[in-house]
Each structure stands twice: as C-alpha cells, then as structure tokens.
C-alpha cells in the first residue's frame, strides 16, 4: 500500500531541524536523505496505484529517479514502452523529456496514435562521467509531451532502428 504520510513526516522532520546541507553532521544529513527517500518510495506506490485505477492498466509501473543523469533501465533496454506524464498543475502544460535509450530511431505516438516529433541525441560526456557504472545509455530520446490539468497523458515509444548511431556532436 502506498501513502503520503511517510513523506509528510520526513519532510516535517527536515523542516523542523532546518535540514540544510552542512548545518548538521554528515551522518545526520544521510539520515534525513534516507527518510525522504523512504517517503518518496511510499508516494511512488500511491501514485502508481492511482494511475493504475485511472488508466485501467495493472501493468507494473516504474519511476526513474536518475533521469537527470540519463539512467533508466526500462527505457534503455525496451523495444517498446509507455511513458505516463502526470501534471500536478491546474492548467495544461507542455514539457520536454529526455529519455536514456540505446537505439538510434524511435517512433513516438500520443494516446490518439498521432506521431510526435522526436530526436535522438548522444549522451554528453559530463553525463557519462557523472553516472559512472550506473547506466549504459548512449543516447537520449528528446520530445515534447503535453499533459492536461491535474491529469495524465500516455505516450507509446517504439524502437525502430538500433543502428546506425546518430552523428556525434560537432566540435566547436
């Protein structure tokens, strides 16, 4: 079962103790981080359950916490996967996503089956340095998603071609 209380409590502890990095000993900072991570995991179950109910799909849903360093096992290894975008704002939003992938050509469609313009670009050197042994994606799939107010949209991503690789970035 998911819940949001665990995160609420962890956040309350962090706020009460002014949990700004460096204003506590490192082992205490680690404890704050652990409490927040556990709270976040409980929320993920809650969101997952809610989306399962709303979408009518019980296929297991995963969250990728390291997308900012191009790490996401499901997008890196799958030939076909779904992306769910939940928008917490009370107005429609457009948002650009970068998904770590290993193929070079992908077909992206929205829930109506309409193709979405997308591009595959190489993962930057800085990202490769940051993630070290945590992922192996060579590329990022970039496209813009739209999501309705306080609702979600679903995109289908299908691998079209494994190779050849896109051209590397041009030297400055």
């Amino acid at each position: 079962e998911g819940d949001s209380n665990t995160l609420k409590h962890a956040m309350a502890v962090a706020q009460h103790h002014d949990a700004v990095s460096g204003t506590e000993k490192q082992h205490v900072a680690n404890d704050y981080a652990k409490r927040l991570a556990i709270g976040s995991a409980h929320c993920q179950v809650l969101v997952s359950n809610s989306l399962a109910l709303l979408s009518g799909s019980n296929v297991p849903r995963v969250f990728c916490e390291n997308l900012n360093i191009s790490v996401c096992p499901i997008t890196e290894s799958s030939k076909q996967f779904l992306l769910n975008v939940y928008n917490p704002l009370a107005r429609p939003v457009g948002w650009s996503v970068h998904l770590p992938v290993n193929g070079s050509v992908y077909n992206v469609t929205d829930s109506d089956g309409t193709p979405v313009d997308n591009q595959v670009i190489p993962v930057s050197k800085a990202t490769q340095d940051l993630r070290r042994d945590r992922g192996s994606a060579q590329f990022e799939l970039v496209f813009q998603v739209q999501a309705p107010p306080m609702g979600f949209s679903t995109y289908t991503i299908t691998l079209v071609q494994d190779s050849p690789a896109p051209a590397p970035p041009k030297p400055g």
Partner: protein
Amino acid sequence: APTSIQNKYLKVTFDTQTGLLSGLTNLETQQTIKLMQNFYWYNASVGNSESVQTSGAYIFRPNSTTPIIINTKPEVTTLQNSVVQEVRQWFSPWVSQVVRLYAESKYLELEWTVGPIPVRDLFGKEVITRLDSSIETEGYFYTDSNGREILQRRKDYRPTWDLKQTEPVAGNYYPINTRAFIKDKQNQLTVVTDRSQGISSIYNGSLEIMVHRRLLCDDYRGVGEALSEPGDYNDGLSVRGRLLLALTPPSTSADTHRPLGQEMVFQPTLSFQQGAP
C-alpha cells in the same frame, strides 16, 4: 562555438572565440541584451587578521572579493535539430554546462553540472555562475521569498538601518527560492531556479548564483564538521541543476516568470510501463 542558436521566440548568440554566451534576443518583442556567462569560485576564508571567522555551512565568507575564473575558453560541442538545440560547454573535469533551447520554448535553459569539487590544493571552494548583462541596474536586483513576495535588494544597503558593510561579497548575498531578476526601463532578465540557492548582484547588470560549495573548515556554529559532503564515491558531491532565463519588458515579465516558476516547482511526474498500450 556556433554564432547563434534560435527558435521563433529567442535568439542566443555566442562568442565564437571563447564559446561563451554573448547575447540574448527576445524575437517577439525585438529586445536584445549583451549577456556573458561563466563559472568562478571564491576561495573560502580560513580567517584573517580582522576576524578568525572561517567560511562554513552557516557562514559564507570568501577571502577575496575577486572570484577565480575556472576557464575562459570552454571546450564546446553543438547539436542542432528540429526538437532541441544544445551548446555543450566543458569548462573543466568538474564544471560543465548545456545551453539548451527547445523548439517551442520562450526561455533559455542552462543545465549546469558541478563537482566533485577538487580540494587537494587545500582551498575550500564556493562555486558561482555569473551572468553579466548590459542591463543598467544601478545596484538593485530582486529576489523572491518562497515564490511569493519579490523583494528589492540594493547593494551595500539595508532599508531599516544604516549598514556598515564589512563583507563586500557575502554581505550582499541573499536567498533565492524560485526566481530573481534584474531590470532597467526596457529590459528585465529573470532567472528561475530549480532549487534554493544564494544570489547576489555585485556589479551593475550582473547576477551571480552560488551553485555548489565544498569547504575544509568548520565555521564554529556547533556542527563541528566542515561542509564537504562525500558523494557516492567519497570524492565529493556532484550536483546538476537548471537555470531558466527569460528576457522580457519589465511590464509583462510576470506573465512569463510566474507560469515558469510553477512549472519548475510542480514538474510533471514521469512513470514507465513495459510493452504496448
């Protein structure tokens, strides 16, 4: 570096010799500013003859008013396609940045990556990025308070008492939670951040944002440890964050930065499922 990247809303120019940002144009309003950006670090004070106070988690106290530049000429690579244009700047093994412009966006994204900060030279480092613009600010800039009231800040001045400034850099730093801006009669440059940081405007037309710090001394405020987070591999913490820049007339700037701030704080939640719909 490329001469410029642009979409239908923004044009971003680069100095082809250095690879650094050199200008920003709002194509809708036809306003242009000079805009240079780079990364620097302040050498953390370990105390001096005026005060034994060291720079630490609670106390920001650089030992000089002049920050040290990390690289005047970063290595640059570019990517341009129909969805996104990127200029990737590599300043050093521990500082890099992607200047990113999406096809449909009215703001410029700067995705910075800093760390692990090296400290083998025994200098604590407080890393900043500074935006130097042609906007005539006359010592004023503006920061938010948790995304709500935006307060005017004036260099070496406090509105409710006569300030005797003893820390020319740190004494002008303020918190930024979601946004800050500088403006003159024609132009407003707004910076939206993805996290709370420290910000200042030491020079006219400039904004400097502290993005990361790693220190070697405790600041005697009770923690008893230096701010030197170990990170995953015990060689220091790496941090990646984003700044969004918007150039607008002052009178309409809130129309841009309010939704932008909301979108930054309440980002969409992404989840994935294997297989077909």
